[in-house]
């Protein structure tokens, strides 16, 4: 599988094309920014999923089924 070009990687992690000056940055810088964005997003998703799982255990038992369905749908 071909390696993704740094600028494409940055666009992918940002979810949009970055402003023009970012296209002229060295590939190493573009890749570092892409990596930082990916790490931040991954950290967020992991932390949030753990918090959701933990939170459900605090919901009163009679409501747990309905709430689990709402959250996990």
């Amino acid at each position, binding site marked *: 599988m071909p390696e993704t070009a740094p600028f494409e990687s940055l666009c992918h*992690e*940002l*979810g*949009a094309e*970055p*402003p*023009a*000056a*970012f296209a*002229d*940055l060295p590939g*190493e*810088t573009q890749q*570092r*920014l892409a990596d*930082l*964005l990916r*790490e*931040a*997003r991954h*950290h*967020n*998703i992991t*932390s*949030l*999923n753990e*918090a*959701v799982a*933990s*939170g*459900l*255990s*605090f*919901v*009163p038992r009679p*409501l747990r089924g*309905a*709430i689990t369905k*709402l*959250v*996990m*749908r």
Partner: protein
Amino acid sequence: MSEHLEHRAELLKLARLLNLDVEELPDLDAVPAAELRAFREAATDRLFDATAGTLGGISKSSRLVPAAVSATIARKAFGPLLCARTAAAVDPPRAVDIAKRLPKDFLADVSVELDPRRVADILAEVPDDLSVPVAEELGRRGEFVTMGRFLAFVSDAGIEGAMNSLSDEALLQTAFVLEHKDKLGHAVSLLDPARMPGILRCAAEQDLWPEALDLISHLDDAERLPVARALASLDEEHLTSLVAALDEVDLWDTATDVLGMMEDGPARKRLVAASGGRVS
């Protein structure tokens, strides 16, 4: 604001968003400040939208349990990040009801993770007796970027509470990374003018003249008057550091306006002499 200072402020804000020290960012000197800001805003949306689906369900589910239970779950299980991400989807009165049951330390943690643009409706309903202690706590922690993002969304009482709790250094640092600099003049007008000499001395002693000059550059003439009076009280050593900073960040135009408001005296004479003919 000079491009150089705006660029530096944007780097601080991008680093905060990514939970890094500014030194950990790659070299972005070639990117203009306006483009750094656009990049940061896109990155903010990306980070907040990544989990939007699950979070909508959590917000809906909070309606099914009493506010006290929601507050307990928020604090003991969800934590500040999840609360911040789900807040935007909770009805404002309900969100405020839950927030009132949470300790200010926890609310400060949540504030760090919030995007104020997404919870403006909630912030508009937060009473001062809730916002001021949280602002004070953020000030105590030195959460400059976080505080700078909230200014446009909190009441004058909240702004005053925060400013009163901030040290002179923290005030300068917060003003520097403020998200809505057009609100800076109003915030300064709420500040006790008696603090201005101390703020300027702090700028000299903590190497924060660029931050102070950036602040001054955003004030109108009336708001600059306390600055002009305070400048007259600075000693030779402080004035020497000011002159060096004015040369470094090229903000003599701003200084010229302020010098025009200063009463004639040793400080004004010293600055006029250093201005190289820019001021007479």
